[in-house]
């Protein structure tokens, strides 16, 4: 029982991070029908920016943790957003209206470029960050006699889960209630008509990239704080998982991305907890394959055909 609860907590935490990244995939797919394969690497870049800012702040003697965290978050979000905007502007926009595979290929190229850029400038080795936020709440006391373990909800996990819930709630509101969100959905459903109503479609697409990148930045910062180690390859792994989450939930669907992220996080954690750590990725991807066979448009995806 205790073991189960602990795995559940860990799974939800991991799922939160996947969910935040998955939103970027799903939104970009929704609006221009393209998988932005460089999105995972934007997450990775944000973790590196966060690490750099951390080390600089510590070096210049700033000790107030909340202040450091705020600065790290804001600076990574700004840099990552600019990064996301630039990638869209340089690599994708010139190809809009060209054949469908073209932006997909540049996306992969962009991903490789970002990875190699970070590998070259930051080195290929794993970068550590000493734990910043420690401690937690003990939910269940372990008992040596029955062999049950201590169930801990760490402060870091609380921060990750709360931040994710708040961000997703805010983001859903933005998409469903504001005129910016409506313009985004309009571009997704019929870009030509949106422009006939005065929507600047290119700008809206850029904004979508920026929003996705900003959310990935938050995920990157939290990843760095939670795991304490990063390397140039985390973007690829997390990106593939988050992409899987987006597809599992139904690509193009915002609640789907959140649900899918949670599902992948839980599957991975429980599989590692009860079966074997080595095969956790196999488990996650098998679930994806099975879902797609029976539900081609994902858990919450909209079917391909619709009455217009």
């Amino acid at each position: 029982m205790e073991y189960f609860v602990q795995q559940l907590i860990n799974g939800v935490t991991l799922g939160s991070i996947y969910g935040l990244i998955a939103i970027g995939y799903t939104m970009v797919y929704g609006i221009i029908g393209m998988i932005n394969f460089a999105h995972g690497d934007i997450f990775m870049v944000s973790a590196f920016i966060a690490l750099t800012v951390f080390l600089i702040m510590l070096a210049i003697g700033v000790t107030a943790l909340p202040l450091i965290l705020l600065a790290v978050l804001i600076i990574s979000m700004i840099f990552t957003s600019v990064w996301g905007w630039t990638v869209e502007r340089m690599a994708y926009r010139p190809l809009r209206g060209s054949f469908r595979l073209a932006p997909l290929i540049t996306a992969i190229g962009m991903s490789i470029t970002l990875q190699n850029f970070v590998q070259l400038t930051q080195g290929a080795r794993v970068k550590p960050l000493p734990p910043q936020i420690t401690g937690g709440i003990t939910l269940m006391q372990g008992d040596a006699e029955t062999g049950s373990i201590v169930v801990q909800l760490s402060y870091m996990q609380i921060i990750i889960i709360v931040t994710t819930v708040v961000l997703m709630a805010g983001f859903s509101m933005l998409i469903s209630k504001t005129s910016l969100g409506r313009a985004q959905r309009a571009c997704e459903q019929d870009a030509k008509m949106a422009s006939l109503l005065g929507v600047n479609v290119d700008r809206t697409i850029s904004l979508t990239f920026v929003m996705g990148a900003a959310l990935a930045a938050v995920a990157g910062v939290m990843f760095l704080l939670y795991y304490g180690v990063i390397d140039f390859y985390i973007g690829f792994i997390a990106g593939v998982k988050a992409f899987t989450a987006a597809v599992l939930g139904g690509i193009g669907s915002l609640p789907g991305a959140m649900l899918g992220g949670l599902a992948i996080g839980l599957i991975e954690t429980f599989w590692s907890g009860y079966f074997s750590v080595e095969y956790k990725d196999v488990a996650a991807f098998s679930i994806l394959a099975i879902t797609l066979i029976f539900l081609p448009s994902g858990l919450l995806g909209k079917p391909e055909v619709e009455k217009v």
Partner: protein
Amino acid sequence: MTAQNPLLAVEGVETYYGNIIALRGVDIAVFEGEIVTLIGANGAGKSTLMMTICGNPQARKGRIVYDGEDITHLPTHDIMQRSIAQSPEGRRIFPRMTVMENLQMGALVTDGASFDADLQRVFDLFPRLKERQHQRGGTLSGGEQQMLAIGRALMSRPRLLLLDEPSLGLAPMVVKQIFEVIKDLNREEGLTVFLVEQNAFHALRLAHRGYVMVNGQITMSGTGAELLARPEVRAAYLEGGRKEAAE
């Protein structure tokens, strides 16, 4: 009429799709307060002209002047900020947005101050839309979608309303209702309307003036009554319309 400058002037416009020419030097003028109709056979280029006015596709030759300003090379979203609205061919309702959200999209170019009054006006014109305001656009009937397309265009408080085949696929009763609405908007609010229609008889009776387009060129123009009287027009475009008028 001819003394003043037209609200919309299309001058020698040529539009291409790739290398294929669709408009071969079109000249049209629409004056403030007029209803002008454009009729022509399938594939003549009517919708292409409507879209060229809105900058998608852009004219390769010639000029489009709106309210004294050359808008030929402006991007579509900039043109649509200038109190021009279009209810395009095929209605293009956002299928996964509610009726209300579709109307809100129409009001995007306004500052929002008059939203409630504009919404009320659209609901007065089309009470059906009020009943269905929470329904998704994609699930409306064809006629309801057409009302929504016109309502959405009106939400932007246009001076010039471009309507591309508002009667397509609708029952005669609904067509009549929509034409009544157009007439009232024009008469009571001075809305300028440029109307593309298959239903030539109704359109020419409604409009102050009309143009006939054949194969990407304007071949005739005149007042509605003049065009209605022309034997070529009757022969080519009025076979279907006359029968309906008898009802």
